[in-house]
């Protein structure tokens, strides 16, 4: 049985020259495509893993950054503060979406529990811009006319008391509601100048580990009771889309800054995965290029070999075929 016309034509065109090369090129192209697809798949998988769990509710994360306290720095307060140049540098980093100072008090603060509770302590206040606070509360405002200061406590602080201190000292555990209901007697002073306020806890923050008061109060009190010198901040807070961004972690490491390590724990994994993915992708791309090169050479070879020997004849055959139906 004779093969059909098109089978014969195919036999002419597939000259057999470079068949092994064609197979190799096809194989190479296949491997290249697989590598590229694996790279894309791994990349998207990892992204999904990272962002779907961690940032399910928030589109951004907040990091409080401070300088690492080393033995050499102890006793020198100035060394833990951020200079203007350092602050400017942090602000201009691409991963910083928003930036705020944490302002400390420049006066003495004492707190006492009302009535017969016999609780008295020295303490401190800090303030951050309101946009960085995770507690939304209508009471969170202060004007010089108010005698009551709203205060936000760190959640960890209450936990430390309830589950560490209270249990071991046989003291009562206190609920958030109770804490909020207790009016604290806050005394702020500088030398002989003293003023009393009522402090009221309005919320508990998971984000910032500090005793927070409204910025307006801090400004007023620092002006009235402070030494007049604007102190540099020793802690700053930034808002960032991706706390596991390797660039951010590297920046912090390079500068010797500290932050909540738990939030940046994915960074190393991400760096490794990114490296692997880019290496795979790179080789895939190189392989793809070579495969395409071999393919184009193969096609050229076929055309050249046909052209050389069978130009008219093949041309004529094709001419006859293409007008066969007309």
């Amino acid at each position, binding site marked *: 049985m*004779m093969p059909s016309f098109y089978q014969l034509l195919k036999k002419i065109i597939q000259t057999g020259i470079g068949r092994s090369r064609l197979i190799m090129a096809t194989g190479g192209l296949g491997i290249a495509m697989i590598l590229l697809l694996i790279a894309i798949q791994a990349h998207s998988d990892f992204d999904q893993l990272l962002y779907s769990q961690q940032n399910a509710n928030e589109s951004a994360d907040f990091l409080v950054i401070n300088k690492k306290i080393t033995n050499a720095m102890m006793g020198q307060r100035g060394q833990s503060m951020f200079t203007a140049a350092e602050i400017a540098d942090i602000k201009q980093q691409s991963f910083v979406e928003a930036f705020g100072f944490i302002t400390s008090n420049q006066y003495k603060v004492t707190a006492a529990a009302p009535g017969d509770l016999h609780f008295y302590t020295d303490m401190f206040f800090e303030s951050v811009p309101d946009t960085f606070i995770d507690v939304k509360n209508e009471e969170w405002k202060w004007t010089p006319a108010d005698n009551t200061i709203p205060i936000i406590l760190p959640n960890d602080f209450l936990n430390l008391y309830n589950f560490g201190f209270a249990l071991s000292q046989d003291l009562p555990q206190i609920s958030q509601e109770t804490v909020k209901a207790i009016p604290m007697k806050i005394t702020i002073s500088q030398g002989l100048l003293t003023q009393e306020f009522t402090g009221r806890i309005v919320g508990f923050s998971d984000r910032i580990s500090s005793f927070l008061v409204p910025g307006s109060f801090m400004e007023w009190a620092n002006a009235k009771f402070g030494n007049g010198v604007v102190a540099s901040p020793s802690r700053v807070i930034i808002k960032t889309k991706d706390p596991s961004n390797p660039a951010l972690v590297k920046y912090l490491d390079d500068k010797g800054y500290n932050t909540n390590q738990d939030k940046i724990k994915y960074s190393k994994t991400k760096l490794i995965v990114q490296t692997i993915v880019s290496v795979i992708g790179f080789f895939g791309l190189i392989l793809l290029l070579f495969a395409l090169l071999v393919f184009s050479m193969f096609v050229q070879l076929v055309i050249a070999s046909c052209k050389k020997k*069978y130009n008219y004849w093949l041309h004529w055959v094709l*001419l006859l075929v293409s*007008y*066969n139906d007309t």
Partner: protein
Amino acid sequence: MQIQLDNLVPVPLRDKILQRSSDVWNRQITFTPGNFIKIKAPSGTGKTTLVHYLYHIRTDYTGQVLVDGQPWSAHSKATIATMRQERISVIFQDLRVFEQLTAGENIELKRVMNGQPYCTAEKVAEMAAKLNITHILHQSGRTLSYGERQRVAIIRALVQPFQWLIMDEPFSHLDEENAQRAAQLIAEECKARKAGFILTDLDNDTRFAYDIHYNL
């Protein structure tokens, strides 16, 4: 189908041709349908070039090749393709047998090309038997001798309908006996179709009853 040459001169051979006289180049010639025409041509006078002009696969000439009163260039590609399928056949000097195909497949390719084969497979077998190449039909084109290739090329040219058969030294690789057999087959096939042929060769011969002789 009438073929006319109108002051045809190949551009590459122009100077050489204009220095001497020729019966074909730079003349008005009409090939009468059904005629057996012999064109005798020494080497280098443009024999193969003329065949390529007649089959319209080269156009580097001045003057015209008129087919049915129209120059080749005036016919559409479709018309030219149809002419090559049904009215004009060719045996190239360089034979152009596909080495990737067997001898039989080379003939088959041409036979089934038109969709409606003009020749039956039996007819092909019969022609192969007449030219003593039945035994090589399953052999690869690569391993064929020139004599065998030439006979494959002759049969290949004869499996289609035609009014003109153009042959370029069709017996150059054949011994006298095989050349005679081939000539006889060609003559039969031409007569069966009431077709003419144009044959170019180096020397005089008496294999056909030529109607006209030209010197190129």
